[in-house]
């Protein structure tokens, strides 16, 4: 039998707190989560750790729906968290909703 839990959504700020093609971080006890905003105002939340050498993805250049890690240029899909191209690895993604200009982050159940 499955128990469906009502997830908690945490208001972390406004869309406009993040520049287009940019990112901000949310500090949590488990580590930093990077929150990205693309050119067309789509938002994504991923662990702020590149699967390669732990680079802070929030500091990378955002292009399309991907980010290039600032340390060694791995390209990570914001939609899937998967490394693109020849590189292999993935980053955990989190639920993120945009409601009335506010960003709501799904709080991990751990």
């Amino acid at each position: 039998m499955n128990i469906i839990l009502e997830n908690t959504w945490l208001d972390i700020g406004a869309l406009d707190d993040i520049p287009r093609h940019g990112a901000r971080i949310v500090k949590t006890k488990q580590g930093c989560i990077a929150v990205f905003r693309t050119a067309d105002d789509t938002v994504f939340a991923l662990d702020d750790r590149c699967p390669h050498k732990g680079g802070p993805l929030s500091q990378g250049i955002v292009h399309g729906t991907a980010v290039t890690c600032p340390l060694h240029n791995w390209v990570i899909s914001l939609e899937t968290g998967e490394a693109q191209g020849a590189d292999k690895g993935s980053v955990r993604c989190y639920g993120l909703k945009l409601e009335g200009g506010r960003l709501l982050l799904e709080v991990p159940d751990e």
Partner: protein
Amino acid sequence: MSARKKSKNTALTAEAPARQRLVVIGNGMAPGRALEKLFERNPEAYTVTVFNAEPRVNYDRIMLSPVLSGEKTFDQIVIHGDGWYVKHGITLYKGSSVTQIDRAAKTVTSARGLTVPYDKLLIATGSQPIIIPVPGHALAGVLSYRDLDDVQAMLLAAKSRGTAVVIGGGLLGLEAAVGLKAQGMDVTVVHLAPTLMERQLDVPAGSLLKEAIEARGIRVITRANTKAILGEKKAEAVLLEDGTRLPADLVVMAVGIRPNAQLAKDAGITVNRGIVVDETMRTSDPDIFAVGECAESHSQVFGLVAPLYEMAGVIAAQLAGYTGATFKPSAVATKLKVTGINLFSAGDFADGKDREEIVLRDAARGIYKRLVLKDDKIIGAVMYGDVADGAWFFDMIKKGSPVSEMRDTLIFGPSFAGGTPLDPTAAVAALPDEAEICGCNGVCKGKITCTITSLSLTSLDDVRSHTKASASCGSCTGLVEKLLKVTLGDAYNPSAVQPMCPCTDLGHDDVRRLIVAKTLKTIPGLMQALEWSSSCGCAKCRPALNYYLLSTWPGEYKDDGQSRFINERVHANIQKDGTYSVVPRMWGGMTSARELRAIADVVEKFNIPAVKCTGGQRIDMLGVKKEDLPAVWADLNAAGMVSGAAYAKGLRTVKTCVGSDWCRFGTQDSTGLGIKLEKYLWGSWTPAKLKLAVSGCPRNCAEATCKDIGVVCVDSGYDIHFGGAAGLDIKGTEVLGHVSTEAEAIEVIAALTQLYREQGRYLERIYKWMKRVGRDTIRSHVIDDVERRRALCERFEYSQKFAQIDPWAERVAGKDSHEFRPIADTTKAEAAE
């Protein structure tokens, strides 16, 4: 010019028995091609004299539009430079028109009174633009669009950024309009017919073209009859029949051309609309030929280059004694040379009872294709938006191939008709050997593939120089490249131009050139205009574009931080653990107790784990947390220190030795010069990092000879070096020049930096740039040509006005504060609960 020195008398006495005398009146593309073909067939047959009314060599007239729009320079469209005339022993009279032909005496006489005898005469007087004789047509500011003089006049007029009216919405008129718009003018096209280019396009394609032209900000008025050009001394407005008054500082008439046949007519040669020629291209006088736009064959006159080149081939053959060669006009294809607008038309596409048509429309993608069929053959084709299959359809028109078997899929082109996958390379591979690839020069596929194989050609330029394919308007370049690929397989490496990144086919130099030519001033605007394939670029192209726009439009372009690598965005150097390092400037490597004390205090206050001396004579604080950066900078600013830009593709350090201040060998104040240079150059963005050094004597303690720019002081002044490297590559500098004063040294270095800023490709260090453009070229710009040096220096100084702002102080004051704070901190929130 030296060819002119070759005296006629020498030719007569020494070579007259062997060689006949060929005189050519006109030096356009058609006679140029005829001579070229003649020399290929028989270089010894004639002694050639050319009279050119224009004061220049033979150039590609159909490429005037790219010159007008700024995409090409005159030098790039020259077909035969001075050297070609010398090589073939041609006597060329530039700026010299022929006023009389004496057929009885077999001589021609020029306006300057020179009389030259001929055995064979070739008339290639071309055509002149039609000027509509409306009131005001002779006012200043009313131009035609015909030769380089017209283009230069238009470019001059465009400098005032005023308004222009182009009368005529045909091929030339539209190219002129787009070119003037690119030069910053406000442009209106007025056209008599209901749709644009009505001779080459049907109504739907003409309407799509109108939309595309209007989308470029050009106003188009069709069914517009010009009544008068108004103005006192110069043109001020164009008045239309319906009373509309269009203000105009410049009026360009591009309504058509008329053959220049008067000279022939005066000589008693048969002239109708043009100079009448038979199939052998002879006029009514068998020793006189006519070629080009002045000639009339089969009751037709011609304006497009392909048939003119065919005529030229026939004349060359006839002159060389191959009497069987004849000219028969065939279907011609048209393309508009406007970057970003693709259209193609060929054959006959008028409606008719006996005709059927196949039409494909994809409005969303702006694609329109129409084939006109008659008796199971294609007789006409119009394509807009996607013209890739043009060559294939054109080939079918010329051959009259039956289409019934593939009719269902015909409109989708060769790749579909053959049932093969939609691979453009395979489609080219499937073309028959006789298929025409280059319409301008009449080069077929077989000729190209044969030449590639027999001469072992490997590049597009090779193919251009050996077959002429893609050497004129260039619209078949893609096809020729595919042929190279098909013929050579993987051995073909089109490395001539490396695209900037996968978002574009353009190389860095093309992008830089187009930024200027098309006045592109934003990244999204550039990506739109240059047809970027990705929605907003990638991590490779965005920083490059940001630099190019910033360096091209200082003070105008707003820096896009999100297109910068993190280090330049937050003005510190990211480290492997996500912390940052901070390096303040120490001008010329000099420091003081106050600065050192401030650094020590900052290190303690912020628990900075590591402090180190850099190779550039300054101090690096490593392991600073990102949130602490603004506070660290505030303390350093308070002690008078600014960012050392140790992260920048820009000026890094100016390393110095102690020079004449302290050193017993010092010849000049190297420290002082280093400080002056650093104070002058700091803040500037360059294609890649820029490191300098100044040594006070040839012992070179500052290691100036492995820097991007180095100065070695000597007794008599300053030796300026550049192009060194001591990183991935190790390379000693090369000497740029010697100057005697400090002021000159600074000016030369600023000019060099500016030239590098303008020409360097993003991430290309000075030594690589030098290798690419050549040391001597750079030296001629910044050492030999004093005026150019000053101009470079002025541009550098202007850009510095906007660059010399300490980025640390800006951020201490609050700029980009979001960068340094988390958007939310759940650790604290929970702690508060």
